[in-house]
């Protein structure tokens, strides 16, 4: 580890900035609450009892640590670097989202909030939020774009079973951005009793920092597991980025390890030439939305595009602010992967390793397929397998022409 002066792991600053990115761009009604949240999170961070409670829940409720799995057959098939998966798809609720939800609901309880709201795209964060709300006995309202409600039906039903109220949002294209707008409208209306449980490492400070901290359990575990398995750190890390929570959780503990190459994989949708993609870092420019300054897909007049991805979880025209900063300083390389490449990777992993991934990590996998053969056989690559594909089976079936 480098000393603190040279570390790039110390952000954000006290105004919530990572370089020029991040910050707190919210309505005045929310400002007092955001400042209170920041204070309460500081207190919680310094409270050993808070950490102990998260750790107990991680172990006995989520099933952490998630395994580090050597994908032997895939490694052989691609003929390059040794490929490992950090298997966060085996977590309770089927994705990395639970890591963040447990941390935040404990914070909400500390703050005395009695009602939880959340936005969701693929439904993974909605399911994880509904799960922790059931576990802690709090009412839960989930805002979900009407388009996403349609293409993620299994998760919609899961949330209902868990006791959550689902509010389909018809504004705009009915995807994650619109769900987040509507959740913000709810929050500003019910600011006294309601906690907004944001699912990704974006939004006003302190959310990007807080979500990153709760997700960093992924990268911290990986360091230990990799030392045990190989006696050294990996050469490359790969993760999918929508808002970027699983990716920052994997990357952050390794940012100061200059020899570890880091790749974030964006949804290239149907190609970067038009508007039908979600590659904010590759094809967007800095702007202000949803409480933070970050790279956004937008036109010259500052109007935000809807974006498109085959994967509802990546269907967001922005990105967490720390990723924007990591791009600017060149620490992380962000690359786009197209819909059809992700779909191919989805099927490949299923057949070669017997693991059905979610469409989100299938994007990361498509980059692994390109990257691994370019690396030496004694090099090590780790991909975050951040979600399982059960929720996508019906949608993929349709795309492949199966009548399910």
């Amino acid at each position, binding site marked *: 580890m480098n000393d603190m002066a040279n570390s790039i792991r110390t952000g954000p600053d006290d105004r919530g900035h990572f370089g020029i990115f991040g910050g707190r*761009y919210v*309505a*005045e009604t929310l400002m007092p609450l955001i400042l209170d949240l920041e204070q309460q999170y500081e207190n919680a961070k310094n409270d050993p009892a808070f950490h102990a409670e998260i750790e107990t829940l991680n172990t006995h409720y989520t099933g952490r640590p998630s395994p580090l799995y050597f994908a032997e057959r895939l490694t052989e098939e691609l003929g390059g670097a040794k490929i490992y998966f950090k298997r966060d798809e085996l977590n309770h609720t089927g994705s990395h989202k639970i890591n963040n939800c447990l941390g935040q609901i404990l914070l909400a309880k500390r703050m005395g909030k009695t009602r939880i709201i959340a936005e969701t795209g693929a439904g993974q964060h909605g399911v994880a939020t509904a799960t922790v709300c059931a576990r802690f006995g709090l009412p839960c309202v989930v805002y979900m774009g009407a388009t996403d409600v349609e293409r993620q039906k299994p998760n919609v039903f899961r949330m209902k079973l868990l006791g959550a109220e689902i509010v389909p949002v018809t504004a*705009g294209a009915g995807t994650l951005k619109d769900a987040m707008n509507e959740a913000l*409208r709810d929050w500003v*209306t*019910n600011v006294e009793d309601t906690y907004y449980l944001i699912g990704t490492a974006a939004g006003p400070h302190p959310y990007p920092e807080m979500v990153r901290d709760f997700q960093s359990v992924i990268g911290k575990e990986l360091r230990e597991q990799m030392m045990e398995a190989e006696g050294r750190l990996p050469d490359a890390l790969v993760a999918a980025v929508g808002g970027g929570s699983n990716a920052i959780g994997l990357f952050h503990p390794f940012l100061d390890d200059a020899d570890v190459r880091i790749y974030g994989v964006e949804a290239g949708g149907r190609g970067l030439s038009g508007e039908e993609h979600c590659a904010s870092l590759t094809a967007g420019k800095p*702007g202000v939305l949803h409480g933070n300054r970050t790279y956004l897909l937008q036109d010259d007049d*500052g*109007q935000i595009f809807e974006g498109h991805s085959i994967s509802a979880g990546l269907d967001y025209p922005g990105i967490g602010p720390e990723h924007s900063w990591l791009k600017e300083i060149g620490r992380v390389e962000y690359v786009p992967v197209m819909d059809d490449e992700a779909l191919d990777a989805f099927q490949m992993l299923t057949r070669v390793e017997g693991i059905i991934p979610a469409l989100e990590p299938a994007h990361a996998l498509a980059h692994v397929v390109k990257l691994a053969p370019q690396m030496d056989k004694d090099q090590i690559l780790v991909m975050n397998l951040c979600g399982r594909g059960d929720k996508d089976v019906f949608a993929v079936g349709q795309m492949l022409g199966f009548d399910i």
Partner: protein
Amino acid sequence: MTETRIDRRFKACADAGRPALVTFITAGDPDLETSQAVLNALPEAGADVIELGMPFSDPMAEGIPIQLGNQRALAAGHTMDKTLQMVRRFREQDNDTPIILMGYYNPIYVRDPEKFVKIARDAGVDGFIIVDIPAEADDELCIPALEAGLNFIRLATPTTDDKRLPAVLANTSGFVYYVSVTGITGANIADTGQVTQAVNRIKSHTDLPVAVGFGVKTADQAAVIGKDADGVVVGSVLVNAIRDSLDEAGKATRQDRQCGFGRCPGSGFRLRKSPFELNRVV
């Protein structure tokens, strides 16, 4: 800073012993031509101060009426250049009624705030209300606006307590916009008594005029709030009136709908002429 159009207008209303009527419309709603006609007709219809909404794809603080107004404007191809053009044209006929650009930060941010405030000033804009820039980020747009001689009007809300209020008021000028509810535009005001209390609380911290908005729907409400407040903001009701004037093709041709806001007699809140007659003017 020297006296602005906004300062002069609030002073004139106070001298006349009445609160200012602050009206909001979304620029370009439902189309440029209609919106320009509505804007030009507002002073004659009773508007003392005009808030001109800058359409945005993600109007997070708006209720359904103004969300739809934003969508109509953008669908008709509205841009920031056209908003500024509307202000220039308005100034050809009216050099006294203040115009405040209201909206969200991103469409300004992408144009470079320091340059934009000067272009806006030269077009005839008098101030800004930007929902998603808190006082903590005053250096980005508020200070450049003040340096360009424009007012920056900050929102104070029911959650802005006495401890926070001084920070919110520090760089505010022109007037203070009190948001009557925790919520979005077009919400319902539950208790006008609480609003009055809040207005007086803010007045104990500042000499600036205080205008109240978000959820003022009737002339009766306006009259009650206007007893203590220096201005009353009407937005969603006007935007709904524009909506109701639209035919199937989205053109403002219908004349069969009327809104009661301006016709409440004896309220003490004087509207010289119903703004809703605008639909017929158009």
